[in-house]
Protein backbone atom coordinates (compact mmCIF):
# COMPACT_ATOMS: atom_id res chain seq x y z
CA UNK A 1 0.00 0.00 0.00
CA UNK A 2 1.41 3.32 -1.06
CA UNK A 3 1.99 6.52 0.87
CA UNK A 4 0.41 9.10 -1.42
CA UNK A 5 2.00 12.55 -1.29
CA UNK A 6 1.19 15.65 -3.29
CA UNK A 7 4.01 18.16 -3.75
CA UNK A 8 2.46 21.59 -3.96
CA UNK A 9 3.11 25.25 -3.19
CA UNK A 10 0.63 27.73 -4.59
CA UNK A 11 3.38 29.91 -6.02
CA UNK A 12 5.18 28.83 -9.18
CA UNK A 13 8.93 28.51 -9.58
CA UNK A 14 9.73 27.41 -6.04
CA UNK A 15 11.11 24.02 -7.09
CA UNK A 16 8.18 21.58 -6.81
CA UNK A 17 9.09 19.53 -9.87
CA UNK A 18 12.81 19.33 -9.07
CA UNK A 19 12.03 18.31 -5.49
CA UNK A 20 9.44 15.71 -6.62
CA UNK A 21 11.94 14.19 -9.06
CA UNK A 22 14.76 14.11 -6.53
CA UNK A 23 12.70 12.72 -3.65
CA UNK A 24 11.37 10.03 -6.01
CA UNK A 25 14.91 9.12 -7.06
CA UNK A 26 16.19 9.10 -3.47
CA UNK A 27 13.36 6.81 -2.34
CA UNK A 28 13.84 4.48 -5.31
CA UNK A 29 17.61 4.41 -4.64
CA UNK A 30 16.76 3.25 -1.13
CA UNK A 31 14.93 0.27 -2.65
CA UNK A 32 11.38 1.62 -2.51
CA UNK A 33 8.94 1.26 -5.37
CA UNK A 34 7.96 4.77 -6.37
CA UNK A 35 5.47 6.22 -8.86
CA UNK A 36 5.78 9.87 -9.79
CA UNK A 37 2.67 11.44 -11.30
CA UNK A 38 2.91 14.66 -13.27
CA UNK A 39 -0.33 16.51 -12.57
CA UNK A 40 0.81 19.64 -14.37
CA UNK A 41 -1.37 18.92 -17.40
CA UNK A 42 -0.58 21.12 -20.37
CA UNK A 43 2.93 22.02 -19.25
CA UNK A 44 4.57 18.73 -18.09
CA UNK A 45 8.09 19.14 -16.78
CA UNK A 46 8.61 16.12 -14.56
CA UNK A 47 9.71 13.91 -17.49
CA UNK A 48 12.32 16.55 -18.38
CA UNK A 49 13.59 16.81 -14.79
CA UNK A 50 14.01 13.02 -14.79
CA UNK A 51 15.59 12.90 -18.26
CA UNK A 52 12.74 10.71 -19.54
CA UNK A 53 11.22 13.09 -22.09
CA UNK A 54 12.07 10.81 -25.03
CA UNK A 55 10.60 7.73 -23.39
CA UNK A 56 7.08 9.01 -22.83
CA UNK A 57 4.59 7.19 -25.05
CA UNK A 58 1.35 7.41 -23.06
CA UNK A 59 0.09 10.09 -20.72
CA UNK A 60 -2.37 10.40 -17.87
CA UNK A 61 -4.99 11.61 -20.36
CA UNK A 62 -4.83 8.26 -22.19
CA UNK A 63 -5.61 6.63 -18.84
CA UNK A 64 -8.51 8.90 -17.86
CA UNK A 65 -9.99 8.57 -21.37
CA UNK A 66 -9.99 4.80 -20.94
CA UNK A 67 -7.47 4.06 -23.71
CA UNK A 68 -5.32 1.95 -21.39
CA UNK A 69 -4.74 1.19 -17.71
CA UNK A 70 -2.56 3.38 -15.47
CA UNK A 71 0.02 0.61 -15.04
CA UNK A 72 0.47 0.30 -18.83
CA UNK A 73 0.99 4.04 -19.22
CA UNK A 74 3.96 4.18 -16.84
CA UNK A 75 7.50 4.89 -18.00
CA UNK A 76 10.28 3.16 -16.07
CA UNK A 77 13.38 5.13 -15.14
CA UNK A 78 16.60 4.31 -16.99
CA UNK A 79 18.77 3.67 -13.91
CA UNK A 80 16.31 2.98 -11.13
CA UNK A 81 14.21 -0.13 -11.57
CA UNK A 82 11.82 0.89 -8.81
CA UNK A 83 11.02 4.35 -10.20
CA UNK A 84 8.11 4.95 -12.59
CA UNK A 85 6.58 8.04 -14.12
CA UNK A 86 3.02 8.71 -15.21
CA UNK A 87 3.56 11.66 -17.54
CA UNK A 88 1.22 14.57 -18.16
CA UNK A 89 -0.10 15.41 -21.56
CA UNK A 90 1.11 18.57 -23.25
CA UNK A 91 -1.80 18.90 -25.62
CA UNK A 92 -4.47 18.62 -22.92
CA UNK A 93 -5.73 21.25 -20.48
CA UNK A 94 -6.22 20.84 -16.75
CA UNK A 95 -9.99 20.90 -17.20
CA UNK A 96 -9.91 17.69 -19.24
CA UNK A 97 -9.17 15.71 -16.09
CA UNK A 98 -11.38 15.82 -13.00
CA UNK A 99 -10.49 15.18 -9.35
CA UNK A 100 -12.56 11.97 -9.61
CA UNK A 101 -10.42 10.81 -12.56
CA UNK A 102 -7.29 11.44 -10.51
CA UNK A 103 -8.62 9.44 -7.57
CA UNK A 104 -9.34 6.52 -9.90
CA UNK A 105 -5.81 6.64 -11.33
CA UNK A 106 -4.26 6.64 -7.86
CA UNK A 107 -6.54 3.85 -6.64
CA UNK A 108 -5.43 1.67 -9.53
CA UNK A 109 -1.75 2.22 -8.69
CA UNK A 110 -2.09 2.20 -4.90
CA UNK A 111 -1.34 -1.47 -4.26
CA UNK A 112 1.72 -1.68 -6.49
CA UNK A 113 3.86 1.05 -4.93
CA UNK A 114 5.44 2.08 -1.63
CA UNK A 115 5.22 5.76 -2.53
CA UNK A 116 3.12 7.73 -5.01
CA UNK A 117 4.29 11.32 -5.43
CA UNK A 118 2.08 13.74 -7.32
CA UNK A 119 3.71 16.86 -8.72
CA UNK A 120 1.10 19.61 -8.55
CA UNK A 121 0.95 22.60 -10.90
CA UNK A 122 1.25 26.10 -9.47
CA UNK A 123 -1.93 27.91 -8.49
CA UNK A 124 -5.00 26.86 -6.57
CA UNK A 125 -7.40 26.24 -9.44
CA UNK A 126 -8.42 23.06 -11.23
CA UNK A 127 -4.92 21.60 -11.66
CA UNK A 128 -4.26 21.94 -7.94
CA UNK A 129 -7.64 20.37 -7.11
CA UNK A 130 -6.84 17.44 -9.39
CA UNK A 131 -3.42 16.97 -7.80
CA UNK A 132 -4.68 16.91 -4.22
CA UNK A 133 -7.76 14.78 -4.91
CA UNK A 134 -6.16 11.41 -4.28
CA UNK A 135 -3.41 12.46 -1.89
CA UNK A 136 -3.28 11.47 1.77
CA UNK A 137 -0.37 13.70 2.69
CA UNK A 138 1.16 16.89 1.32
CA UNK A 139 4.62 18.34 0.96
CA UNK A 140 4.43 22.11 0.76
CA UNK A 141 7.40 23.71 -0.95
CA UNK A 142 8.27 27.31 -0.20
CA UNK A 143 11.25 29.59 -0.51
CA UNK A 144 12.03 31.97 2.37
CA UNK A 145 10.33 34.94 0.66
CA UNK A 146 7.00 36.49 1.57
CA UNK A 147 5.03 35.78 -1.65
CA UNK A 148 5.94 32.09 -1.52
CA UNK A 149 5.20 31.76 2.20
CA UNK A 150 1.86 33.53 2.04
CA UNK A 151 0.84 31.35 -0.93
CA UNK A 152 1.93 28.28 1.03
CA UNK A 153 -0.29 29.45 3.88
CA UNK A 154 -3.27 29.71 1.52
CA UNK A 155 -2.59 26.22 0.18
CA UNK A 156 -2.39 24.78 3.71
CA UNK A 157 -5.82 26.29 4.38
CA UNK A 158 -7.22 24.72 1.21
CA UNK A 159 -5.73 21.32 2.09
CA UNK A 160 -7.29 21.48 5.56
CA UNK A 161 -10.65 22.36 4.04
CA UNK A 162 -10.20 19.40 1.75
CA UNK A 163 -10.05 17.23 4.87
CA UNK A 164 -6.30 16.78 5.23
CA UNK A 165 -5.07 16.76 8.80
CA UNK A 166 -2.42 19.34 9.72
CA UNK A 167 -0.10 16.55 10.88
CA UNK A 168 -0.08 15.18 7.32
CA UNK A 169 1.08 18.46 5.80
CA UNK A 170 4.85 18.87 5.80
CA UNK A 171 7.03 21.79 4.80
CA UNK A 172 10.14 21.89 2.64
CA UNK A 173 12.01 25.19 2.63
CA UNK A 174 13.92 25.54 -0.62
CA UNK A 175 16.75 27.90 -1.62
CA UNK A 176 17.66 28.65 1.97
CA UNK A 177 20.67 30.95 2.25
CA UNK A 178 22.46 30.58 5.56
CA UNK A 179 24.72 33.57 4.96
CA UNK A 180 21.68 35.85 4.48
CA UNK A 181 20.05 34.48 7.62
CA UNK A 182 23.29 35.18 9.50
CA UNK A 183 23.24 38.77 8.22
CA UNK A 184 19.63 39.13 9.34
CA UNK A 185 18.40 39.53 5.77
CA UNK A 186 16.37 36.35 5.42
CA UNK A 187 13.59 34.74 7.42
CA UNK A 188 14.79 31.83 9.56
CA UNK A 189 13.23 28.37 9.52
CA UNK A 190 11.67 29.18 12.91
CA UNK A 191 10.03 32.34 11.52
CA UNK A 192 8.48 30.34 8.69
CA UNK A 193 7.41 27.44 10.89
CA UNK A 194 5.86 29.79 13.44
CA UNK A 195 3.66 31.38 10.77
CA UNK A 196 2.69 28.27 8.81
CA UNK A 197 2.29 26.07 11.91
CA UNK A 198 3.29 22.81 10.20
CA UNK A 199 6.28 20.52 10.69
CA UNK A 200 9.42 20.98 8.60
CA UNK A 201 10.40 17.98 6.46
CA UNK A 202 13.62 19.49 5.14
CA UNK A 203 15.60 22.64 4.43
CA UNK A 204 17.30 22.69 1.05
CA UNK A 205 20.20 25.07 0.47
CA UNK A 206 20.33 27.34 -2.54
CA UNK A 207 22.42 25.35 -5.01
CA UNK A 208 23.97 25.70 -8.43
CA UNK A 209 24.21 21.89 -8.63
CA UNK A 210 20.45 21.81 -9.32
CA UNK A 211 20.85 23.85 -12.52
CA UNK A 212 23.68 21.60 -13.75
CA UNK A 213 21.67 18.47 -12.90
CA UNK A 214 18.57 19.77 -14.73
CA UNK A 215 20.70 20.63 -17.77
CA UNK A 216 21.87 17.02 -17.86
CA UNK A 217 18.47 15.49 -17.12
CA UNK A 218 19.97 13.62 -14.19
CA UNK A 219 18.46 14.51 -10.79
CA UNK A 220 21.12 15.75 -8.39
CA UNK A 221 20.81 12.68 -6.12
CA UNK A 222 21.80 10.44 -9.05
CA UNK A 223 24.51 12.58 -10.61
CA UNK A 224 28.28 12.50 -10.23
CA UNK A 225 27.94 15.25 -7.66
CA UNK A 226 25.63 13.24 -5.43
CA UNK A 227 27.66 14.18 -2.37
CA UNK A 228 26.73 17.85 -2.69
CA UNK A 229 24.91 19.50 0.20
CA UNK A 230 21.61 19.53 -1.65
CA UNK A 231 21.83 15.83 -2.52
CA UNK A 232 22.55 15.01 1.12
CA UNK A 233 19.52 17.02 2.29
CA UNK A 234 17.28 15.27 -0.25
CA UNK A 235 18.52 11.94 1.09
CA UNK A 236 17.69 13.17 4.61
CA UNK A 237 14.17 14.04 3.42
CA UNK A 238 13.77 10.61 1.85
CA UNK A 239 14.88 8.94 5.10
CA UNK A 240 12.39 11.05 7.09
CA UNK A 241 9.62 9.99 4.70
CA UNK A 242 10.60 6.38 5.41
CA UNK A 243 10.11 7.04 9.11
CA UNK A 244 13.69 7.69 10.24
CA UNK A 245 14.27 10.36 12.84
CA UNK A 246 16.87 12.62 11.21
CA UNK A 247 17.11 16.01 12.97
CA UNK A 248 16.51 19.09 10.80
CA UNK A 249 19.73 20.56 12.21
CA UNK A 250 21.58 18.10 9.93
CA UNK A 251 20.17 19.87 6.85
CA UNK A 252 21.49 23.17 8.13
CA UNK A 253 24.88 21.69 9.00
CA UNK A 254 25.62 21.17 5.29
CA UNK A 255 28.06 23.66 3.72
CA UNK A 256 26.46 25.98 1.16
CA UNK A 257 27.51 27.55 -2.14
CA UNK A 258 29.83 30.42 -1.48
CA UNK A 259 30.91 29.02 1.87
CA UNK A 260 34.46 28.57 3.15
CA UNK A 261 34.78 24.92 2.04
CA UNK A 262 33.22 25.69 -1.35
CA UNK A 263 35.73 28.49 -1.89
CA UNK A 264 38.69 26.11 -1.49
CA UNK A 265 36.98 23.38 -3.51
CA UNK A 266 36.60 25.80 -6.41
CA UNK A 267 40.24 26.85 -6.23
CA UNK A 268 41.45 23.22 -6.37
CA UNK A 269 39.01 22.32 -9.16
CA UNK A 270 40.32 25.16 -11.26
CA UNK A 271 43.93 24.04 -10.82
CA UNK A 272 43.14 20.55 -12.03
Amino acid sequence: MANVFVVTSGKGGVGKTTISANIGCALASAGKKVCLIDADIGLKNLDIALGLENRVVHTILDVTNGKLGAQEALVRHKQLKGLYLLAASQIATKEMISPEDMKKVINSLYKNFDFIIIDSPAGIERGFRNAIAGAEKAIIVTTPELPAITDADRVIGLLENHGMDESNILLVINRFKKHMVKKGDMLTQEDIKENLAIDILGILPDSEAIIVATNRGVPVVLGDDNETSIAKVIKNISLRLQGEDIPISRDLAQPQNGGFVDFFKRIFKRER
Partner: protein
Amino acid sequence: MFFGLFRKRKKKKKESGSRTDAKDRLNSIVSSRRRSVPIQDIVPQEVLDGSEVDVKNQIKHYVSEKYNVNEENVKVQFEEHNGYVVIITNVVFH
Protein backbone atom coordinates in the same frame (compact mmCIF):
# COMPACT_ATOMS: atom_id res chain seq x y z
CA MET B 1 33.39 65.04 5.63
CA PHE B 2 35.01 63.06 8.46
CA PHE B 3 31.76 62.92 10.45
CA GLY B 4 29.77 62.25 7.33
CA LEU B 5 31.68 59.01 6.89
CA PHE B 6 30.46 57.75 10.27
CA ARG B 7 26.92 58.91 9.59
CA LYS B 8 26.83 56.88 6.37
CA ARG B 9 28.05 53.73 8.15
CA LYS B 10 25.48 54.16 10.88
CA LYS B 11 22.72 54.47 8.27
CA LYS B 12 23.89 51.33 6.49
CA LYS B 13 23.75 49.36 9.73
CA LYS B 14 20.19 50.51 10.33
CA GLU B 15 19.11 49.49 6.81
CA SER B 16 20.36 45.90 7.19
CA GLY B 17 18.28 43.23 8.91
CA SER B 18 15.31 43.13 6.56
CA ARG B 19 14.35 39.86 8.29
CA THR B 20 12.51 41.87 10.97
CA ASP B 21 10.46 43.70 8.33
CA ALA B 22 9.69 40.43 6.57
CA LYS B 23 8.68 38.80 9.86
CA ASP B 24 6.30 41.64 10.78
CA ARG B 25 4.74 41.70 7.32
CA LEU B 26 4.38 37.92 7.27
CA ASN B 27 2.68 37.95 10.68
CA SER B 28 0.16 40.55 9.59
CA ILE B 29 -0.61 38.82 6.26
CA VAL B 30 -0.86 35.27 7.59
CA SER B 31 -2.92 36.15 10.67
CA SER B 32 -5.69 37.55 8.47
CA ARG B 33 -5.71 34.65 5.96
CA ARG B 34 -5.80 30.83 5.88
CA ARG B 35 -8.97 28.81 5.55
CA SER B 36 -11.26 29.48 2.60
CA VAL B 37 -14.96 28.77 2.84
CA PRO B 38 -15.94 25.13 2.27
CA ILE B 39 -18.77 24.42 -0.17
CA GLN B 40 -21.03 23.31 2.71
CA ASP B 41 -20.87 26.84 4.18
CA ILE B 42 -22.38 28.22 0.98
CA VAL B 43 -24.90 25.49 0.23
CA PRO B 44 -26.03 23.41 3.25
CA GLN B 45 -25.05 19.73 3.00
CA GLU B 46 -28.68 18.49 2.92
CA VAL B 47 -29.57 20.85 0.05
CA LEU B 48 -26.39 19.85 -1.76
CA ASP B 49 -27.06 16.10 -1.31
CA GLY B 50 -30.61 16.50 -2.56
CA SER B 51 -29.92 18.56 -5.63
CA GLU B 52 -26.39 17.69 -6.77
CA VAL B 53 -27.26 14.39 -8.50
CA ASP B 54 -30.35 15.90 -10.11
CA VAL B 55 -28.46 18.95 -11.44
CA LYS B 56 -25.63 16.74 -12.72
CA ASN B 57 -28.06 14.43 -14.53
CA GLN B 58 -29.95 17.33 -16.13
CA ILE B 59 -26.71 18.92 -17.38
CA LYS B 60 -25.46 15.54 -18.70
CA HIS B 61 -28.76 14.95 -20.51
CA TYR B 62 -28.87 18.45 -22.00
CA VAL B 63 -25.23 18.41 -23.17
CA SER B 64 -25.45 14.90 -24.63
CA GLU B 65 -28.53 15.90 -26.66
CA LYS B 66 -27.10 19.23 -27.76
CA TYR B 67 -23.75 17.80 -28.93
CA ASN B 68 -24.90 14.31 -29.84
CA VAL B 69 -22.50 12.48 -27.49
CA ASN B 70 -23.06 9.65 -25.03
CA GLU B 71 -24.01 10.70 -21.51
CA GLU B 72 -21.00 8.72 -20.19
CA ASN B 73 -18.77 11.15 -22.09
CA VAL B 74 -20.12 14.11 -20.13
CA LYS B 75 -18.59 14.62 -16.69
CA VAL B 76 -20.08 17.18 -14.33
CA GLN B 77 -18.22 18.32 -11.23
CA PHE B 78 -19.23 20.61 -8.35
CA GLU B 79 -16.41 22.62 -6.81
CA GLU B 80 -15.92 25.53 -4.47
CA HIS B 81 -13.58 28.25 -5.67
CA ASN B 82 -12.86 31.10 -3.28
CA GLY B 83 -16.36 31.20 -1.91
CA TYR B 84 -18.19 30.47 -5.19
CA VAL B 85 -19.81 27.18 -6.19
CA VAL B 86 -18.52 26.32 -9.67
CA ILE B 87 -20.09 23.63 -11.86
CA ILE B 88 -17.54 22.25 -14.32
CA THR B 89 -18.64 20.18 -17.31
CA ASN B 90 -16.21 18.11 -19.35
CA VAL B 91 -17.34 16.74 -22.70
CA VAL B 92 -15.26 14.06 -24.45
CA PHE B 93 -15.94 14.22 -28.21
CA HIS B 94 -14.84 11.12 -30.11
